[in-house]
């Protein structure tokens, strides 16, 4: 079965819509996520992207890594721009000024452009019910500007604006639960994903694209630079985030929750923290506190899911 996991990604479409030659750091699992998401979106898509790592690395004038139509305007407005593209095309097709055709509109942003500065525009677009997907590539801090904390940074992580010091132990707040916030908008499709699970990510984006109305995919995207791990370990840590339930994988389809990865025995959070520079300062007491919270949150999530044995 393990071998199948290895070969399954070869089944993805060969065509690259987010091409090589971009300037992402070595081992960037966010660039990998964008690549897989674009394969799932396919050629008949338009992307509106927020300012951030992926925008900067993919579009320095006069070059571009994008083989599909792509627009960037600013940091906080990717969802609003995407909803504008959707509205424009809808009006033009209805009025006979463009031939009718299914075009998938995707907004994309990092965790800052989604959970912090972009939250209002995203909430507005989801509430208005535009037929679009929004993908959050969550690398758990403002990596583009130099690893500053965001509301998606996990408790305890040391960043340049939540540094671990003599009196503080890194980030002092718990990670904002963006997928829950999106689910609370009552939209037809919400999912979490991780580029360490490429087939799962691919399938979720495919499902999101088929949904009529707004869909949201929250993709954990490991950042070796910001997490202070070796560049070859991004996939391993992505898997550990899921296997420890630090980042559980699930879907909310028309309000119904289902886990897409469930383990009878979760790995201890120490397996995930070990080797990550951003967590190296944590005391055993702090780790125990985090473990308790993760276990509790996971049980709460499992209780909501309809496809697990309770």
């Amino acid at each position, binding site marked *: 079965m393990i071998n199948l996991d290895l070969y399954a990604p070869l089944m993805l479409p060969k065509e690259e819509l987010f091409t090589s030659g971009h300037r992402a750091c070595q081992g960037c699992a966010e660039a990998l996520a964008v690549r897989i998401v674009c394969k799932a979106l396919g*050629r*008949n*898509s*338009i992307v*509106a992207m927020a300012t951030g790592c992926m*925008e*900067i690395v993919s*579009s*320095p*004038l*006069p070059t*571009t890594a*994008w*083989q*599909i*139509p*792509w*627009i*960037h*305007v*600013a940091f*906080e*407005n990717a969802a*609003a*721009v*995407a*909803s*504008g*593209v*959707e*509205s*424009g*095309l*809808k*009006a*033009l097709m*209805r*009025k006979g*000024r*463009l031939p009718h055709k299914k*075009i998938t509109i995707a907004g994309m942003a990092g965790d800052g452009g989604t959970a912090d500065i972009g939250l*209002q*525009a995203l*909430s*507005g*677009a989801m*509430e*208005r019910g535009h037929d679009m997907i929004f993908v959050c590539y969550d690398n758990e801090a403002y990596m583009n500007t130099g690893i500053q904390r965001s509301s998606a940074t996990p408790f305890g992580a040391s960043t340049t604006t939540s540094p671990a010091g003599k009196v503080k132990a890194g980030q002092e707040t718990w990670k904002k639960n963006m997928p829950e916030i999106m689910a609370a908008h009552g939209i037809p499709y919400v999912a979490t994903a991780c580029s360490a699970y490429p087939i799962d990510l691919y399938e979720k984006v495919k499902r999101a694209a088929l949904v009529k109305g707004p869909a949201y995919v929250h993709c954990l995207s490991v950042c070796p630079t910001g997490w202070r791990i070796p560049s070859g370990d991004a996939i391993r840590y992505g898997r550990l985030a899921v296997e420890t339930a630090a980042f559980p994988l699930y879907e909310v389809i028309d309000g119904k929750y289902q886990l897409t990865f469930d383990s009878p025995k979760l790995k201890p959070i120490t397996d995930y923290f070990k080797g990550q520079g951003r967590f190296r300062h944590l005391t055993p007491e702090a780790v125990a506190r985090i473990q308790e919270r993760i276990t509790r949150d996971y049980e709460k999530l499992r209780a909501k899911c309809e496809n697990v044995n309770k």
Partner: protein
Amino acid sequence: MTEPSRKKIGVEVSIAVSEAVKQCDVDVVSAYPITPQTHIVEHLAELVAQGELDAEFVPVESEHSAMSVCAGSVAAGARTFTSTASQGLALMAEIVYCVSAMRLPIVMVVANRSLSSPLSIWNDHSDAMMVRDSGWIQVFVENGQESYDHIFWCFRVAEDEKSLHPVMLNMDGFILTHTIEPIEYWEDEMVKKYLPPFQPKFRLHPEHPLTMGAFGPPEIFTECKKAQDQALIATMPVIEKAWEEMEKICGRKYSAVETYRAEDAKTLLVTMGSFSETARVAIDEMRETGEEIGLVSLRLWRPFPFEKFRNAVKNAENLIVIDRAMVFGGPGGPVASEIRSALYSGKKRPRIVNFIAGLAGRDVQPDDFYQMVQHAKTKIKDGTEDEYEIYGVRE
């Protein structure tokens, strides 16, 4: 020349403006409510709800998103309209700069209103002056008819292949937006003749993928900005032509700089927006008492019509520039500063006296213009004309 239609109806200017937007058959309207812009977008929502306008009305959660939706929809090739004022313009200002650099031809009506604080819903030009350097084509209109006529002009100028710039129509909040005026509507046939359909060369579509809004490293940023400046200056012939064509269609003649009883005038008032109409009344009254005075009304604010302006004031000895916005700790009002720069290199330079008046809706009546003219004479006599003055302050 087409025989202009003569039927005039009494209508609130905001309603007339939205009727013009409807006649332009816009595809997308995106807006967030703010006084005194509300009647414009309310009426457009009503027209969409009644099926009289086939458009997507996107009621966003902020002005920032309003301009962002406009960016997306016009990039997709849709004719797009929005409207705002004051704090709303301040909130969307970031995107106002983005869309002009991205050459996205959005049309926006700004129902000019003062900026907080203290909070005020009434009219002045501080909102427009905040985005003076945003790279938009910017006009100020004097009255209701002009507001209505210029909606067609805005779309034509914005979407012209040789322009591709967003256009901002500034109309004084309440003074124009909430006034009922006699307006002569255009027949739909006239609009069709004047305004060709929007057919963008570049649009977001999977059939011809392109990258919009890329990142500009230092090696290329300066070149981008020079190109943008040149492109804005190069819209001037498109702007002029759109006014010429309008005269042929509806019989009304507009230009970048308009003069009134200015030929033999030693002293000229310089105004922008609805001030100009009141100033005309004041000038007629002053002329009757033998005052050699005229008016220069500045309609086009960006790109600034240097040549036309210099020509309009070439025989004047004194200019009395009346601004409707503050420049704190600066050289005077924004219009006066601009005019000083425009005339500085000339051999014969008029004296420039600057008043700031009508802030936050404070009424400026014909007599106030008379008072300012008299006061300007004293200032010139005293040699204090370089110091700007805020008119009508209760001390």
